[in-house]
């Protein structure tokens, strides 16, 4: 016979805080109920979530739960269940609240998990129910020193890609995972005003008004990724009326300001200082030489259009903006994708823009599209196995200088947020110029962007497979308008870099 929790008992059930079910499709709350100090979950909820068939056996006083021919027979009188013939214990028998059957939440790992196709992981502390191959990062935030400077650490286990960023007085640490399994954050202290770990995979650490420029460094071991945040006092103390401190403002302990930030970065770089100013930009006309790229129906070649547009853009930027422009090619010659990134990295460019003309399987498709890099799980695994390692090298004049060694093909990983911002600005301005494609702003595993060690984006300026656009991309008017539409976001991005640290 089932334990009947009726009348006053049913009304007296105390809803516990819901579990969060995390699958590859997303997350959703799953309600639970407290009964006599035990936490229960509705069998109907489990049945709909896991496609179970539940059959109540009134005579035997139990319930049979079936999944793909496998069965669990749970007793209403004893705290146990038979799982495919094997007996497991449970903290309590099945209970009933009104019309609903309830099982202790331990039913999930002990009885359901052994018969289910995908892994099921119940994490009580963080109240997560993880189903399937989902990347869930354990996150622990601690304040190591109240200071100032205030020092905090974000520990991410296992080692995953993290993207730190500064945004309006906050340090944001985005973890490339499907969900976070976070311990409760510590109480704020020192220059840290608030620590938030919400439903997203970003940890937000708000700084108070006395805080200066945060310095953030990331170290990765085989087991975890550790983000160390050091928050000094603002240089002119108490100056809250000022705009966010310029990125070139040195922290108290660093050397005098360097005019070329990327070259002189220590191992714990001033966040955003890598692109503190836009001094050098690389333009990459796609394809070239034997690689013609897309060929239009009337024979127009992508490689020629990209070169024409890049030359125009170079002239405009150099004359109006005074930014040094380096072209990966300035003639019709073939150049590998790695060479293109190498041109940018070796010149310590602050921005990289690759220009292409698109092709589609249907001639009707037209419009401009903007891409920035999407890191996949494989990229993160590769990053873990060849994690950024710190080398300490002897420096000229004595002493040592630590440098970070970054795997070549993952250089873009540290800049994806800034690249996203740049790509959004491109999309916004290009939209004013002409029609946008069906997916105007996309994240994709673009090979040429992956090795660029600076914010980078790729613009597919039009569809050469569309007869109308094949004609228009060759016209001087179209190219002039297009170049202006790409110039404007470059100006915006420069202002963004100079006004606030790049995210």
């Amino acid at each position: 016979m089932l334990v009947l929790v009726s009348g006053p008992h049913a009304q007296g059930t105390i809803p516990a805080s819901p579990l969060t079910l995390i699958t590859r499709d997303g997350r959703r709350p799953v309600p639970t109920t407290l009964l006599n100090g035990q936490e229960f979950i509705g069998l109907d909820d489990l049945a709909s979530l896991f496609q179970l068939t539940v059959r109540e056996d009134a005579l035997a006083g139990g319930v049979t739960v079936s999944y793909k021919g496998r069965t669990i027979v749970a007793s209403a009188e004893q705290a146990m269940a038979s799982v495919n013939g094997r007996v497991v214990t449970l903290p309590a028998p099945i209970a009933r609240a009104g019309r609903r059957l309830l099982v202790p939440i331990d039913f999930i790992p002990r009885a359901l998990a052994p018969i289910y196709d995908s892994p099921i992981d119940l994490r009580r502390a963080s109240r997560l129910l993880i189903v399937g191959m989902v990347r869930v990062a354990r996150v622990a935030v601690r304040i190591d020193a109240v200071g100032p400077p205030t020092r905090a650490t974000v520990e991410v286990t296992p080692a995953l890609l993290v993207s730190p960023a500064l945004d309006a007085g906050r340090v944001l640490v985005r973890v490339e995972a499907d969900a976070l399994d976070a311990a409760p954050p510590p109480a704020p202290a020192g220059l840290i005003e608030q620590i938030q770990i919400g439903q997203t995979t970003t940890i937000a650490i708000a700084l108070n008004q006395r805080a200066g420029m945060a310095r953030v460094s990331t170290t990765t071991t085989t087991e975890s990724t550790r983000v160390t945040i050091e928050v000094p006092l603002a240089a002119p103390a108490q100056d809250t009326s000022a705009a966010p401190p310029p990125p070139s403002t040195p922290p108290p302990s660093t050397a005098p300001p360097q005019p070329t930030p990327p070259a002189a970065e220590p191992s714990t770089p001033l966040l955003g200082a890598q692109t503190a100013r836009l001094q050098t930009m690389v333009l990459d006309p796609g394809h070239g030489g034997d690689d013609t790229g897309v060929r239009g129906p009337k024979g127009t070649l992508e490689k020629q259009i990209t070169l024409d547009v890049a030359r125009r853009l170079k002239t405009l930027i150099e004359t109006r903006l005074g930014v040094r422009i380096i072209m990966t090619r300035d003639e019709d010659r073939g150049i590998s994708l790695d060479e293109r990134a190498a041109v940018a990295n070796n010149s310590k460019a602050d921005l990289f823009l690759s220009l292409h003309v698109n092709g589609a399987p249907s001639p009707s498709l037209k419009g401009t599209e903007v891409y920035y890099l999407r890191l996949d799980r494989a990229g993160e695994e590769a990053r873990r196995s060849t994690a950024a390692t710190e080398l300490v090298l002897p420096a000229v004049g004595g002493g040592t200088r630590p440098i970070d060694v970054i795997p070549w093909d993952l250089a873009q990983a540290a800049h994806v947020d800034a690249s996203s911002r740049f790509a959004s600005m491109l999309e916004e301005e290009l939209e004013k110029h002409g029609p946008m494609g069906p997916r105007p702003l996309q994240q994709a595993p673009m090979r040429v962007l992956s090795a660029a060690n600076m914010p980078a984006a790729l613009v597919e300026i039009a569809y050469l497979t569309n007869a109308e656009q094949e004609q228009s991309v060759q016209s001087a008017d179209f190219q002039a308008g297009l170049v202006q539409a790409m110039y404007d976001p470059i100006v915006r991005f420069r202002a963004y870099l100079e006004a606030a640290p790049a995210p």
Partner: protein
Amino acid sequence: MTRKRWLQIAGVVAIIIVAAWGASLILERMVSPVAEQQTVQPPPAPAANVPHIIATLYYGTADGQALAAIKREVPLGDGPRAQGRQILQSELEPAPAPYLSLIPAGTVLRAFYITDRGDAFVDLSPEVSSMHPGGSTRELLTVYAIVNTVTANLSSVERVQILIDGKQADTLAGHVDLRRPFERDTSLVREIKGTQ
């Protein structure tokens, strides 16, 4: 004279009829397999007694913007690897109207294998790259047509890496990074009524 003429005419007519019958037989033999391929659902037109499965194959939508998941009959394979080969062979066949083929014509499946870790390798002949018309959009659609076709049908496959002529490749046509395996991505897929 008249009778002889009639006999001559009758003889010519008989020869024409016999020749026409013979020609129609020959033409029928030549034409009927093609006609059969166009009308029968499974692309390779296998023998009727061969057992089949219904697989989900990915093609370009008619407007070229997205992928469409289309259910098609594919010969039953003995185990995931053989089944994967059958599915990919079907995927390499021309797309059923009104959908668009995304893998260049002439591309051949050289090999297909699955590791214990759930990584599948799809080894294609060089035409997949040399005959690819290019463009980021088309390249993304080609890559994910292959990746999604494998992952949608073989539950043991988590990731798919595309090899060209037995070797790891940079890209198909200068855009999408092929150096690492891909996971299934349905963001390019548009749901077609009655097919998914």
